């Protein structure tokens, strides 16, 4: 087990290094790095000063070394627009995005798995077809259009829920979150639903497929032969059996949810990382773009690592090897 973790850590470090190389190459080697790192309105003297200050007259390899060194210390440049370190900027927005992502993930699991179970246990029925078609619709709708429709229906027409920004936050269990206030909660609902729809469809399909593949297996029949009730078979046998791969998918999807948040945050003006990156791309705030890339890559690597470890822990066949009686 320990060997496994160490090996994965090393692999992750390698991946991070690879990404830093790609980013460095993209930003510093291709195109004019001065243009990328300086605001567009700098004049010639400022340029020359900047080139020397940034060490751009040094050989490329040395520059890469400096880049890495600074990165490890947490210095990934300063934002042109906000004039604070990019890292600081990103981390200030991170909680909002995480809150949104967690909420969306929760919705997709809490609604998706039961629906998927329901459909999987009734193959070929109208319910099954309806749920499947609904799930296809779920991932056919581009999320930005879903968001627009949600706003149109619930905000403009019905006026039930706000469509803009994050509401007032309070402290719950020591964390600042929107769940602590009603205002915060109502502001969280629409964007969370919007973000959850893709994953909801995925959960439904995964669970349904898992159930359909598991029910014909021998051990289910054997459980019936023991006289076990169908309810218990579904909840204790089937669910536990399909949960392991599903949990790993959920883990991997967490990264995707955080990425997809960019669209949702843009539409609902939610002050998270995603909106930041879109704004930065539009305003050509390149240090922030670089910092965002590195941070997000790191996050994905960490998430993947945790998921791998979790999988090894959850599946007894993987966890306990080679101890056959």
């Amino acid at each position: 087990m320990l060997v496994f973790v160490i090996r994965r850590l090393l692999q992750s470090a390698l991946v991070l290094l690879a990404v830093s190389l790609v980013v460095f190459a993209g930003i510093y080697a291709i195109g004019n790095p001065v243009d990328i790192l300086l605001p567009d309105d700098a004049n010639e003297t400022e340029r020359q000063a900047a080139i020397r200050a940034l060490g751009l007259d040094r050989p490329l390899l040395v520059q890469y070394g400096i880049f890495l060194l600074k990165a490890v210390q947490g210095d990934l440049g300063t934002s042109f627009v906000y004039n604070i370190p990019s890292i600081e900027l990103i981390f200030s927005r991170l909680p909002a995005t995480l809150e949104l992502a967690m909420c969306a993930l929760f919705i997709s699991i809490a609604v998706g798995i039961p629906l998927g179970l329901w459909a999987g246990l009734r193959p070929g029925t109208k319910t099954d077809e309806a749920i499947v078609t609904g799930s296809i619709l779920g991932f056919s709708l581009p999320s930005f259009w879903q968001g627009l429709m949600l706003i149109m229906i619930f905000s403009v027409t019905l006026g039930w829920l706000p469509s803009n920004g994050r509401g007032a936050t309070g402290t719950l269990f020591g964390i600042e979150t929107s769940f602590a206030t009603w205002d915060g909660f109502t502001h969280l609902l629409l964007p969370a639903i919007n973000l959850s729809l893709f994953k909801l469809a995925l959960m439904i399909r995964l669970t349904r497929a898992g159930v359909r593949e598991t029910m014909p297996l021998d051990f289910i029949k054997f459980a019936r032969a023991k006289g076990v009730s169908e309810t218990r078979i579904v909840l204790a046998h089937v669910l536990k059996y399909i949960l392991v791969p599903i949990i790993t998918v959920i883990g991997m999807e967490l990264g995707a949810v955080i990425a997809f948040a960019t669209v949702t945050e843009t539409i609902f003006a939610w002050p998270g990382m995603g909106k930041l990156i879109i704004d930065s791309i539009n305003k050509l705030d390149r240090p922030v773009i670089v910092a965002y890339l590195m941070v997000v890559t790191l996050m994905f690597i960490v998430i993947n690592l945790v998921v791998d470890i979790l999988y090894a822990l959850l599946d007894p066949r993987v966890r306990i090897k080679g101890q056959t009686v």
Partner: protein
Amino acid sequence: MPDEALLTVRDLRTHFETRQGVVKAVDGVSLDVRRGEILGLVGESGSGKSITGFSILGLLDAPGRIVGGSIRFKGEELVGASPERMRALRGREIAMVFQDPMMTLNPVLRIDTQIIEAIQVHERISTRAARARASAALQRVGIPSPDERLKAYPHQFSGGMRQRVAIAIALLHRPALVIADEPTTALDVTIQAQIIFEMQKLCAESGTALIWITHDLAVIDGMGDRVCVMYAGRVVESGAVRDVISSPAHPYARGLIDSIPSRNERGKRLSQIPGAPPTPFSLPQGCPFRPRCGRADAACLEVPQETTLRGERRVRCFHPLEESV
């Protein structure tokens, strides 16, 4: 003085409605099982022997259903019985042991969970008491240090051990009847002998009747009381094991016995039944064995009915073999 049979099956028909047509897996099977006796159900793949076993317990997967006939257990009719009634019987009065121990037990649940569940579904006892019963059951089938083994997962057991666990589960409530569907086919030859011996012993101890489904006539030769030979969904010959094996009446039974390696002389060619068993969609007209039978004639274009040769010997053939001197 015939004592009333424990299980009486009359003219059982189990059909599967598939996209390609109706598969008559079991097409008019009749058999009796008396208390405490071991009945062998012998036939090749596709003969319908396993389906017969599943039909008795009501464990048919869609699209299979019992379309006709009667199954009386202790005088109670099982065909058409409510699902609740069947569930109460399964594991308690009639138990089943499956062929492939790999998939019989749920790989993600512990052994104790799966045994305790089998106990608690029919009896209201505390988990602790159930665990003690489970431990005793494992001991009974010859598994050493049962308390430790209980905490293990199925993949930590060898095939033979897993089958013992399955047998232990089957005998938990001292059922009147156990249906064993090719329980030793997937095991090593040496383990096979052990398992056969265990089952014989345990059934004799508790007076449990046993239906042993197999394709291997030699196994029944060693341990069965009576035998039913199946071909293409019907019983073609039945009677006491000694009688059937020493002087088979049906040409197919004769062919099976002749092709047992131990019954042939060394160095001589193994005798084989020519041809192959019919597929469900290409059943010959009349007697299904006709194309492979050396004794077939025009009369065999009709479907032979079951006739009684003498006493308990029954056969489905227009030209049964004569008794050897």
